[in-house]
């Protein structure tokens, strides 16, 4: 009984068109796998660019730098030095957090590459620097006016210009990644179409016979599409798996830029990337199914 059932199942799944030998079983998954590998890298690149841009925009855009020339001179209000007056305004401002005056040692470290080991000996009119975070969008115009009032010539700047450049750079990287994905999808479809056409050419006689016996176009197209779908999904899964080591390596390289400390146990892949990798075989399967359907149905039009 079991033997008869097995024979029945085997016979129901008969390869009517002989596609097992006609459609390249190794070449198609390999090529789609390569496309999937590239797609995984493109997706990762796009996501990494977005993450780094968010990080950098946050850091650079909110960074406030205040330069006070002649910091020890008396303030315009007559109370204390210019540095003390500016620091007092910054500390009182609700839009500024963590205003910190750079120490002489820190200033020395900053200027060392240009002025040598000990800047104090040079007796140069070095301005004082106060750093902090600017919590508001837009330039600190009101703050600038307030600082000018107590210490004329004081300069307050944020990293907004840098942040907008980083945003433009990220946009172009993401657009490139989308272009790569489109090209990869197009090439995958072309590869599947060529493999399907090769199968059609090889099994032309069998197709003509089955067509003559009353097979619908969908009967024939579905048989090709099932094989193309299976091969594409398998290839894409292999490609996505093969991309994992490269993605972990890239994540490791990008970790310091994304604010992950070197002593961190090891960078994990971001969740959106982890979620998009399993989608690659599904998308490849869809491309395989659609391409094979269109190719076969177009080819069948030449039969009466």
């Amino acid at each position, binding site marked *: 009984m079991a033997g008869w059932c097995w024979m*029945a199942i085997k*016979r*129901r799944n*008969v*390869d*009517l068109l*002989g596609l097992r*030998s006609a459609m390249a079983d190794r070449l198609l998954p390999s090529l789609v796998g390569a496309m999937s590998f590239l797609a995984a890298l493109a997706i990762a690149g796009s996501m990494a660019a977005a993450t780094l841009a968010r990080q950098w925009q946050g850091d650079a855009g909110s960074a406030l730098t205040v330069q006070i020339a002649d910091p020890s001179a008396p303030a315009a209000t007559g109370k204390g030095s210019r540095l003390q007056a500016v620091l007092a305004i910054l500390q009182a401002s609700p839009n500024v957090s963590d205003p910190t005056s750079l120490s002489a040692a820190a200033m020395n470290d900053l200027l060392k590459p240009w002025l040598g080991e000990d800047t104090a000996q040079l007796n140069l009119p070095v301005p004082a620097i106060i750093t902090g975070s600017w919590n508001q969008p837009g330039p600190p115009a009101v703050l600038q006016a307030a600082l000018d009032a107590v210490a004329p010539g004081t300069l307050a700047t944020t990293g907004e210009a840098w942040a907008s450049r980083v945003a433009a750079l990220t946009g172009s990287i993401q657009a490139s990644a989308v272009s790569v994905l489109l090209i990869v999808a197009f090439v995958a479809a072309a590869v599947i179409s060529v493999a399907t056409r090769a199968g059609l050419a090889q099994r032309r*006689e*069998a197709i003509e*016979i*089955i*067509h*003559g*016996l*009353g*097979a*619908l*176009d969908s*009967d024939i197209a579905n048989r090709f599409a099932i094989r193309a779908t299976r091969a594409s999904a398998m290839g894409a899964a292999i490609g996505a798996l093969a991309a994992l080591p490269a993605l972990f390596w890239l994540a490791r390289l990008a970790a310091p830029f994304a604010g992950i400390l070197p002593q961190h146990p090891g960078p994990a892949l971001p969740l959106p990337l982890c979620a998009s990798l399993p989608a690659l075989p599904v998308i490849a399967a869809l491309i395989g199914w659609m391409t094979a359907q269109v190719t076969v149905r177009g080819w069948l039009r*030449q039969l*009466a």
Partner: protein
Amino acid sequence: MIRFENVWLKYRHGGKSSAAAADVVSNMSFEIPDGGFRWLTGASGAGKTSVLKLMYLAEHPYRGRIDILDVHAARLGRRDAAMLRRRIGVIYQDFRLLSHLSVYDNVALPMRLARRPEKQIRSDVTELLHWVGLSAKLDNRPYELSGGEQQRVAIARAVIGRPKLLLADEPTGNLDDEQAHRLMLLITALNRMGTTVVVATHNLALVKEYPAPLLEIAHGRLVLDGD
């Protein structure tokens, strides 16, 4: 009913009828009533196979009208044409068996395309292969069979779906006298049960043995309609 009305055919090259190509069927008109039997005769190259191809919708005329089983063939969409082909059994001169399938699977093809239950397929195919004397070769591939055996597989495949129209192109060409006689018995039995039959042959002895109206063709033209 099968009806040809002023039918002209040229073979297509690159998907279109070439203006320079010669007509293989010229201004042909005839009718075969439901359940009729016709011998289609003529010398080799006269156009018998082309007429059969028009009947099983493998070719379309560039002029004229063809009705197959009371359906205007030119008006059929692809799906309807496929469904009509399922009602037509064809025994090809060159057998046209699928070499990668077993004898059983070749004969089961029309039933599988019609999505019949596997149990019914098993029963019908086994019975028919027994009838044509091939029950011991169910699992053989066609290339492992003699010409006569392949012919019998082709016959079994053509009749397994109990077609309304049976077309045979030189069906006894590879059969010995006894097998040819058995085949003609099968064909006449199907005809008695209501199947319309057209048999192309140049075997006049066979025609004399099984008398029926003739459609005789010469150079693509109908020169004699037995009716």
